[in-house]
């Protein structure tokens, strides 16, 4: 008897599940039906409250605000949206933390369901899921930072953006070089001991481009500088970054910088009293006695651009590169207490030279590869599984970074930089 009841229960369960499937079937069509309905009131609202733009924007972030990387996007998004009169939670929505998985596609689709005109995602590995959503919602614009595929994907509503952050890194490098000079003059160590340590995430072009431009900036003012780079294999891993920075310091590095998103390296520097140059955000709070300066991408100009494009009915650029001139590349919060004297003046001078084009970061006369000057380099600009080099990047005596595609593709190993480990 008991068994029969149990069996019946099992059957009921199956039917319940089937019914769930069945009843959801008409429901699944709802979003499509809902979308125009959601649009309609949205279209009427701004008429009632004049300043608010007729726009709804969704943002997807990989982590919460504890990550300097994501915080940088969040503050810029707030700034740009508020300037347009948008209200958080109503006309602009944040979703975080969104993993780089099917979760990203679901988040993008939910934002599209919620009536967003633009959906933006901030992390490199979100790209494929954004493309997936872009194919499904042709009427919604999908913008993705740091991605590489928009220029070859052929979708009208999928866009990439990045900035010429290598110029910012170069400037931060100049500040680092000046600090090294100051320490050499103070007799803390000899000129040939001026070794910089760098904590990277992966041996990815964006990281390589970042540490190389940083190094070239430092060497432009401190010619004896060398650099050691180590990789953690994670974009965000506080413990690993802290340990990596500590190892570099123990290895004799006199100054640390990083391309990884946590406060790990700045904390290690503060503990050891070694100067640190930061990225993406000021880490002055984590290292008041060691933090020199940070370079970052200011995303507000891009957010403003993408919203303006939609408001004016113009297409969003497929692949947009922000520069020093657009205000997308910034150096900020110079810590006068730690930085060498005269840093601000020198930075202004170098920045002016970069802006007017008289100075190029990857000028081939300033570095060598295996002792030779580079005259030709085929870069892998169009992403493919075999990493086929497809574009000549060197002309007019310099490597043209972020010109053929917004995301960095400089992945040359230059002399003077030692990679301690390359398994990632």
């Amino acid at each position, binding site marked *: 008897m008991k*068994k029969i009841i*149990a069996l019946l*229960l*099992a059957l009921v*369960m*199956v039917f319940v*599940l*089937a019914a*769930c*499937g069945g009843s*959801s*079937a008409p*429901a*699944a*069509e*709802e*979003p499509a039906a*809902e979308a125009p309905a959601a649009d309609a009131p949205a279209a009427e609202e701004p008429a009632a409250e004049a300043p608010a733009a007729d726009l709804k924007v969704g943002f997807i972030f990989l*982590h*919460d*605000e*504890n990550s300097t990387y994501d915080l940088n996007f969040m503050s810029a998004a707030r700034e740009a949206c508020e300037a347009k009169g948008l209200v*958080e*939670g109503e006309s602009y929505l*944040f*979703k*975080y*933390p969104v*993993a*780089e*998985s*099917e979760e990203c596609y*679901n988040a993008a*689709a*939910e934002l599209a*369901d919620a009536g967003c005109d633009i959906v933006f995602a901030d992390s*490199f*590995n979100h*790209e*494929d*899921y954004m*493309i*997936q959503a872009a194919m499904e919602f042709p009427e919604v614009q999908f913008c993705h930072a740091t991605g*590489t595929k928009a220029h070859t994907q052929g979708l009208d509503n999928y866009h990439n953006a990045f900035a010429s952050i290598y110029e910012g890194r170069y400037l931060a490098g100049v500040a680092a070089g000046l600090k090294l000079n100051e320490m050499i003059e103070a007799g803390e160590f000899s000129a040939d001991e001026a070794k910089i340590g760098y904590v990277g*995430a*992966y*041996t*990815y*072009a964006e*990281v*390589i481009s970042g540490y190389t431009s940083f190094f070239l900036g430092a060497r432009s003012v401190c010619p004896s500088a060398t650099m050691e780079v180590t990789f953690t*294999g994670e974009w965000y891993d506080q413990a690993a970054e802290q340990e990596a920075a500590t190892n570099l310091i123990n290895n004799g590095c006199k100054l640390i910088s990083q391309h990884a998103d946590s406060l790990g390296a700045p904390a290690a520097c503060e503990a050891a009293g070694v100067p640190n140059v930061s990225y993406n955000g000021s880490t002055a709070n984590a290292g008041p006695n060691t933090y020199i300066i940070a370079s970052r991408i200011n995303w507000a100009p891009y957010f403003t651009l993408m919203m303006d494009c939609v408001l004016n009915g113009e297409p969003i650029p497929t692949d947009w590169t922000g520069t020093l001139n657009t205000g997308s590349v910034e150096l900020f919060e110079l810590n006068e207490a730690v930085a060498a004297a005269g840093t601000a003046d020198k930075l202004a001078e170098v920045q002016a030279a970069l802006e007017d084009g008289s100075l190029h970061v990857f000028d081939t006369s300033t570095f060598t590869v295996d002792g030779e000057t580079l005259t030709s380099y085929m870069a*892998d600009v169009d*992403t*493919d*599984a075999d*990493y086929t080099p497809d574009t000549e990047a060197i002309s007019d005596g310099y490597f043209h970074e972020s010109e053929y595609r917004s995301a960095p593709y400089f*992945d040359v190993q230059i002399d003077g930089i030692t990679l301690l480990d390359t*398994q*990632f």
Partner: protein
Amino acid sequence: MNKQRDPLFHIVKRAALPWYKAWGIRAAAIVLALILCALITTLITGEDPIQVYVTIFEGGFGTARRAWILFHNLAMLLIVALAVTPAFRMRFWNIGGEGQVLIGCLASAACMITLGDKLPNGVLLAVMALASILAGAVWAGIPAIFKARWNTNETLFTLMMNYVATQLAAFFIIIWEVPKGSGTIGIINQSTMAGWLPQVGPSKYFLNILIVAVLTVLMYLYLNYTKHGYEIAVVGESERTARYVGIKVGRVIIRTLLLSGAICGLAGFLLVSGSDHTLTTSLAGGRGFTAVMVSWLAKFNPLFMIFTSFLLVFLARGAAEISTSFGLNQSFSDILTGVILFFIIGCEFFINYKLSFRSAKKEG
């Protein structure tokens, strides 16, 4: 003063509670957990507590898409719980579900990447499913053989196999990464959709959910109405009895673990082919461990597991929605999930034991 004092209360083991009382206690625990969650949220954010419940519900069922995601998450958690259950019934503590799923994912992804343009889609899918099931079975079979032959500790062994699987996946991700150095594979065969399960029914998740539903019923029948199921129960009760009645214990252990691993492998196949279409080291998403809880809470009954996994998935989605819509961070939804799990697991104590107070004894 030398008079022996009774403690304020002492703990007494209960006789089996009638089912409605046991479920009453569980329901009360969930209600209490929800009240506490609302209290915490209200105190921190100043939001109306009713609004908090509405938000939890909206996180799960707010739109048709959310409902599908909820049922898909439920199905994926349930299938891993189904996989570990036969082993648990046998008192074989397989906590290697995570690795067995991941190795299944790896096998499927490997087939998609290397054979994606060489085989017709139907054949490719069959090869992928077979490879995943085989990989999962091998991953669970290794500790089973060691247990059956040399009586090694299965808890440690299956746990360690998780790390091996994670490192293997990490190794192949570096080999297949696109673009170079990025440490990621991205969506596999995005343009050709080779090796993707076709969409059947109203949602792309429908097929996955259907497969798990069928599997749930089959597992229920297998455990309760077959000779194998009976042997598993006997081995679980007492290995000596099993030996006495002529059950080959080693064989039952290995056979059951192969089944356990095979279902985990199948879960890996469904994750790669049916939903995520990629390979990452975190693709199993902790389900191998959460499944242990699902299975335990349901007393190893596959049908009850539908409810326990629903509960866990629903609460997780709700907690995430609270932290998103009230602008709180990830830690907050972790706190809420923690509170809820504490109550759910804690209430099992009150089902198995009762507190008997001092005053009650005096009167007696």
